[in-house]
């Protein structure tokens, strides 16, 4: 597809190879930035977990491990479908790309749906940090309740930012699916799919750490 080749090469690059490598490096640098962005939260988490271990454990026991584990599996599945989409894009299999991308979106949506269920449960039990927070459901009182509130503050900040990343990712993947349907991606040029894949896998990795850190405190 020489025409497609010419249209995707941006004017300031010499070759398509240079353009692909730049995109890939750019995405990786962006992910490095993301690592440090979540890193601030993980550092906060580490400090308080070491400080208030017991309250964190008690508070975490109220998370639904089954839902968390199921969601982990869903996200891993979505990573697989994303990887398959990238694979199909590299081979230029138009319908396969679309199918894999849409299944990724579906799995992402399931994850978010489960997250909504979990959040609602916390809402009903007054576990949303703030003035209405009550550690009653956790059977904690006094200072332990405050520390449980720190746990829930971190829980919502971390899972919330993670979910936000997914919410940003889903429309991007949908957009890719549209372009894929139009036959934009093939062996010559599939960088957008690849880059979105990297982003999506990164979001998966964040969850891989969030799950044991938030749900499985012993």
């Amino acid at each position, binding site marked *: 597809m020489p025409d497609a080749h010419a249209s995707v090469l*941006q*004017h*300031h*690059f*010499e070759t398509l190879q*240079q353009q692909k*490598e*730049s995109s890939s*490096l*750019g995405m990786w*640098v*962006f992910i*490095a*930035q*993301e690592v*440090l*962005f*979540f*890193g*601030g*939260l993980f*550092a*906060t988490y580490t*400090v*308080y977990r070491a*400080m*208030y271990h017991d309250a964190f454990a008690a508070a975490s026991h109220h998370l639904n491990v089954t839902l968390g584990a199921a969601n982990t599996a869903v996200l891993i599945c979505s990573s697989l479908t994303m990887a398959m989409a990238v694979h199909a894009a590299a081979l230029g299999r138009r319908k396969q790309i679309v199918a894999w991308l849409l299944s990724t979106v579906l799995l992402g949506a399931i994850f978010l749906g489960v997250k909504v269920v979990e959040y609602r449960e916390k809402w009903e039990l007054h576990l949303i*940090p*703030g*003035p209405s927070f009550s550690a009653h459901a956790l059977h904690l009182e006094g*200072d332990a309740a*405050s*520390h449980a*509130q*720190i746990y829930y*503050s*971190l829980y*919502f*900040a971390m899972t919330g*930012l993670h979910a936000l990343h997914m919410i940003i990712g889903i429309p991007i993947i949908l957009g890719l699916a549209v372009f894929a349907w139009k036959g934009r991606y093939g062996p010559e040029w599939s960088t957008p799919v690849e880059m979105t894949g990297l982003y999506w896998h990164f979001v998966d990795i964040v969850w891989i750490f969030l799950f044991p850190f938030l749900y499985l405190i012993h």
Partner: protein
Amino acid sequence: MTTATPATVLPGEPQLPKKHFLNADYGVWSWLLTRDHKRIALLYLASVTLMFFLGGAYAVLIRLELITPPGDLVSSETYNKLFTLHGVVMVFFFLIPAIPAVLGNFLIPLMIGARDLAFPRINLLSWYLYVIGAAFTFWTIVRGGLDTGWTFYTPYSTVFSNTNVISAALGIFIAGFSSILTGLNFIVTIHKMRAPGLTWFRLPLFVWAHYATSLIQILGTPVVAVTILLVALERVFHFGFFDPNRGGDPILFQHLFWFYSHPAVYIMILPAMGVISELVTCFSRKRIFGYSFIAMSSLAIAVLGFLVWGHHMFVSGQSVYAGMVFSALSFLVAIPSAIKVFNWTATLFRGSVSYETPMLYALGFIGLFTIGGLTGLFLAALGLDIHVTDTYFVVAHFHYIMVGSTVMAYLGGLHFWWPKITGRLYPEWWARVSAVVIFVGFNLTFFPQFVLGYLGMPRRYHFYPEEFQVLNVMSSAGASILGVGYLIPMVYLAWSMRYGKIATPNPWPATGLEWRTSSPPPTENFRETPEIDVEVYDYTVPPKEPFLA
């Protein structure tokens, strides 16, 4: 004015190229939707200049207030907002973007022989993020200001302040991403877009410095972004992160904040050092002394800079042992900085030194940076820092680094590349005068503050004891000179855009690829992709011919 008006162009006089990036297209949208790194650099130039004078206006009010010991000009509430906004505007909206986003943006593609940065759209997005961040800051000001200090220390910022912390925090958060994306663009560009034959050790040191800066922007900025976000969550939704009444630790905020904000000082100073390396070689007409040591010291500063943040917290109650480690590492940063100063000095040796304005700024930079750097040793020394931290000693120290050094380099660089950017020369006589005025004014303003600080005058004080008045008056007097010094270039640079003498492609003359295209450069920078076979800074031969059609 010593320059002629361009009423008549004599034969043999340089002429502007017919087509260049400034006249490639006309109209507001040709600027607001541009993807040309040179135009984006000029958008940044206009915005950071605006922010510089806004921040400067706050400084004027602060210095006016401090002429007398009692707080008689403004109320304490207002005074606190003045220094807070001075800090926020200057740090996040002037110093951090100034050299990278203006000079770096304009020059990096030119210096490496590329047609643009790797991601032109993201480059434009960076500018828009900057503008949105600045808009939030304006909103903060209009709504009544901010009084937390630019450091946003908790729990004051999260629980006690009654001012507009949220909008200010959002502004900084957004501007942070502007900075991250600029860094990302630079890293990819420097890695992937270098002209054929331009190997790493042939790169100008300006590029090396920006590479190191970008590393900090990428690896540090996200941490302060998320920290600011936590402050906002704690303030708006009463999440508990740093509030001691709910078991939070305010010192954790300081760790997270300084993890970025100490390296942020290197975001300001590393590009400045890059500028100085260019200026010193050009005006000594001699290869930089110890090229690889200067290049590597930039990286060393960037990496070591991440390991020293705790030296802002020696009196906070941080563990004594952590304090010792931070102190030791802080001293190590002094070494690469010293290496640079010595190498610049050695570059002059047996050179052919001329004293055009950029060189005056460069020499001024070396002097002020030396003092700023050496006073950093006072603050890294544990037992001594206890006395001087949070006093005017610190204020003087970081102004020597951030204003004395960074702004000097910024102005020096702006003058140096002004002919390249606009195609016209600035009036040399006025420029030299203003360089001297700024140097003198700066020292008069900030040197007394070292003495004040050691005497024990705390920073951020609206009222102060009478015995500190003489030094404060000296400082304010110096500030008025400094202010004039900053206004003069503003005037003649604006004037020269229209009336300045037409510049040749290489007026100094200097080596470096940016001088081998027309002034101003065409939109695509070079008519043909340049090929490089020698390293930059080869001053033994007359300047090479430009790559012109």
